[in-house]
């Protein structure tokens, strides 16, 4: 997820200032590669990894691990004179902290560790919110050559691969074996997960550095309040609990919607560019196991009963949202939720890490946040509850990089489960957990909270990918535009879907239907099939 400048707990602040100072003068200081660390710092058999804090051995690695192989390979490149002085990584402003801030106390920063172990300077270029792809396209189309690595939203991978601006990583993957599908530590859903996050049309183009599976949160103080429970049960005839179905969700949201008291029912986004992820959730659960966006032959399926109903619900749900819903982006959503302004919301999985956080003194909901699975719909064989993968930073190697292999090795090191667990546990940025090892890691669980971690993991299993084929942006824009017209009353649900379908056809022609059908089928393979038992 992309949009949060790093935060640091109060006690990190002085460390932060020091780091900044260090970064500023780091060029002359570039760490002597040969400097040996006391062997006793590392656990036995380990060749590298962070030290200096309790539990550090969990993030250390031996020679036969993805991290260990990456470091050894970099050293070999260096010995052969094929390694660069520095690697330039373009990254959203808000994620940088997780690489540059030491965490926990006593630890080095990820950047320091990399530089210490390899002697290659990691030069991070901050990119402002929402401009990641703009900057990348700028670099690609002008041959700017400003970066070795781009970090972009996951579903731009297809578009970016088609530009030729990023390189295929298959050879490096084969040579250095990142073991992303390791059944114990790797991606959720194994090979399929890897294919979803890192591949485009069967070729690896990216290394996922994020887990933006949209997850639902609610306010436990409201849901556990006996008065509320009673009032709700009296009114609706069933117990007040986190909703399992969209019908329940809408009823609960309406129940808690008290704008005069500064409380909105549910503030899942409705704005341009983001809101449609919440339309997705309502749409894809329309059929069991999934209501797809496209048929296998590339025909759009949205202009249908399912599409109309999802759109209608999506529009109707404005009634329990802020009056400003349509103009609210995630900053307003997070600000409002932290201020105690909503009963439920759907957000990036980091919401509890930021808002249910004693260090965040501005938050009024610390200790009052709960998580629940996405609402779904009852079908014959149970409830189909679905959420979406949206944004999700994925790092790619620029085809203008002079040292693609070293750049890849950095990504293998960064994106493998030991280093990544350590990094994602660091609360100063928005790389979110997505690997099995992350969900199990005590430090990550502490940052993200136990109650949340399990829900995230189960949400991952119910996650539908958003469109990631070439033309992804154009497809989403067309959908977005028409949904927005429906939200503002400019169109009814059926018109909105009919228009979207027409525009999608045009985009499909532009993109090339063959390419599209192949990508649609690859995308489909990653759709979940899990069904939940119907509520009693």
């Amino acid at each position, binding site marked *: 997820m992309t949009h949060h*400048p790093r935060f640091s707990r109060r006690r990190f602040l002085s460390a932060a200032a020091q780091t900044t100072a260090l970064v500023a003068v780091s060029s002359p200081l570039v760490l002597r590669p040969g400097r040996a660390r006391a062997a006793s710092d590392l656990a036995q058999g380990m060749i590298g990894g962070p030290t200096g804090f309790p539990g550090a051995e969990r993030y250390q690695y031996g020679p036969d691990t993805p991290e260990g192989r990456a470091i050894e390979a970099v050293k070999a490149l260096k010995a052969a004179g094929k390694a660069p002085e520095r690697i330039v990584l373009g990254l959203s402003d808000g994620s940088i902290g997780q690489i540059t801030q030491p965490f926990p106390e006593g630890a080095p920063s990820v950047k320091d560790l990399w530089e210490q172990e390899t002697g290659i300077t990691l030069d991070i270029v901050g990119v402002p919110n929402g401009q990641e792809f703009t900057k990348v396209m700028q670099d690609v189309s002008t041959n*700017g050559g400003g970066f070795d690595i781009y970090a972009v939203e996951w579903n731009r991978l297809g578009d970016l691969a088609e530009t030729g601006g990023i390189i295929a990583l298959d050879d490096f993957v084969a040579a250095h074996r990142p073991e992303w599908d390791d059944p114990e530590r790797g991606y959720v859903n194994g090979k399929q997960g890897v294919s979803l996050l890192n591949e485009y049309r069967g070729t690896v183009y990216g290394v996922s550095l994020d887990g933006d599976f949209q997850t639902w949160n609610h306010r436990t103080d409201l849901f556990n309040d006996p008065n509320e429970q009673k009032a709700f049960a009296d009114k609706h005839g069933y117990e007040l609990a986190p909703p399992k179905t969209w019908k329940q969700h809408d009823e609960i949201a309406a129940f808690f919607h008290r704008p005069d008291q500064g409380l909105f029912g549910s503030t899942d986004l409705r704005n341009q560019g983001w809101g449609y992820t919440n339309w997705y959730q309502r749409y894809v659960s329309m059929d069991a196991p999934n209501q797809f966006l496209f048929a296998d032959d590339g025909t759009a399926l949205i202009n249908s009963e399912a599409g109309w109903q999802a759109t209608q619900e999506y529009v109707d749900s404005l009634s329990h949202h802020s009056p400003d819903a349509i103009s609210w982006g995630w900053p307003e959503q997070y*600000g409002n939720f932290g201020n105690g302004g909503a009963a439920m919301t759907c957000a990036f999985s980091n919401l509890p890490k930021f808002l249910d956080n004693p260090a965040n003194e501005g938050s009024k909901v610390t200790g009052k946040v709960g998580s629940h699975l996405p609402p779904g719909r009852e079908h014959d064989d149970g409830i189909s509850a679905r959420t979406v993968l949206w944004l999700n930073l994925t790092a790619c190697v620029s085809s203008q990089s002079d040292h693609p292999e070293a750049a890849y090795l950095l990504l293998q090191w960064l994106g493998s489960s030991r280093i990544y667990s350590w990094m994602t546990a660091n609360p100063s940025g928005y790389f979110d957990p997505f690997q099995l090892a992350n969900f199990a890691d005590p430090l990550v669980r502490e940052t993200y909270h136990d109650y949340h971690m399990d829900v995230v993991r189960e949400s991952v299993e119910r996650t539908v990918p958003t469109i990631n084929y070439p033309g992804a942006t154009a497809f989403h824009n067309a959908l977005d535009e028409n949904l927005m017209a429906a939200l503002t009353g400019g169109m009814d649900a059926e018109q909105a879907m009919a228009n979207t379908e027409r525009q999608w056809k045009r985009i499909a022609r532009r993109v090339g239907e063959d390419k599209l059908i192949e990508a649609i089928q690859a995308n489909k393979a990653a759709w979940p099939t899990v069904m939940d038992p119907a509520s009693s």
Partner: protein
Amino acid sequence: MQRSLSFEIFRYAAIFTFLALSLIPTIWMISMAFKPIAEWQASGADLTWWPENPTLDNFRFIFGESGSDLIVALERTAGRPILASLLAATFGTLIAMVAGTSAAYGLSRFGAGGNLPLALIQLRIFPPMAVMIPVMIMWAFLGLIDTWYGLALIYGIVTMPFSFWLMKTFFDDMPREIEDAALVEGCSRWRVFLKITLPMMRPALASSALFVFILNWSDYLIALLLTTRDWVTIPVYMASLSSSMTGQLYGAKAALGLIAAVPPVIMGIAIQKQLVRGLTFGALKE
């Protein structure tokens, strides 16, 4: 001079009404700049017009120091973007003023460059967004992407029409008798331009420069597309001021906004005298 009381009352009433409305956003920005984080998001009944616990944290924050109430720390502070904005806007203004003023004089006095009025109007009216693709490619080819001088160059070009047109009206209005007298005394045209015309134009130059500077200083779109890291300007940098802990960092944005208003205000004050003389300039005609 005669002025009736009722007119005076009307005048003040009208001016103050206008100011009351027009200052709302400014006051909001100033107040926000001094609000602690807890007061940023206030709305509805909680809304406050003045900071209840005024603080300088927002200013400290954007320069990299974490205030007591801000739990986010910045990766990039505002210092560099302020420098970038200053350099690009100042040199852009210089380019625009030199090229625009001399062209205006050339046209006004000697009828040279008859194509310029139209060409420059077209240049100015044309939405920069529509040519940014080729400009990006050109700038990358010339190595001007993400440099302050690359930004200054494009700023100078896109605001040149402004200085040209403003200066041209002033030159057109300027009596030629003074120049002619100097010519008769044997000065060359160049000397007349440099030693007589330009000094007389000082007020006009100052006010045009202020406008041009403000336009350059304000730009968001061009800098968004032509900078990446080292020379990101204030408006582009503004987007970095948001956080998942608090949402938009409105206080920090307002604080930076307030700082960003300082150079134009200082320029305005510095040339106020010139501005006033610039305003009365045309009266020379009589």
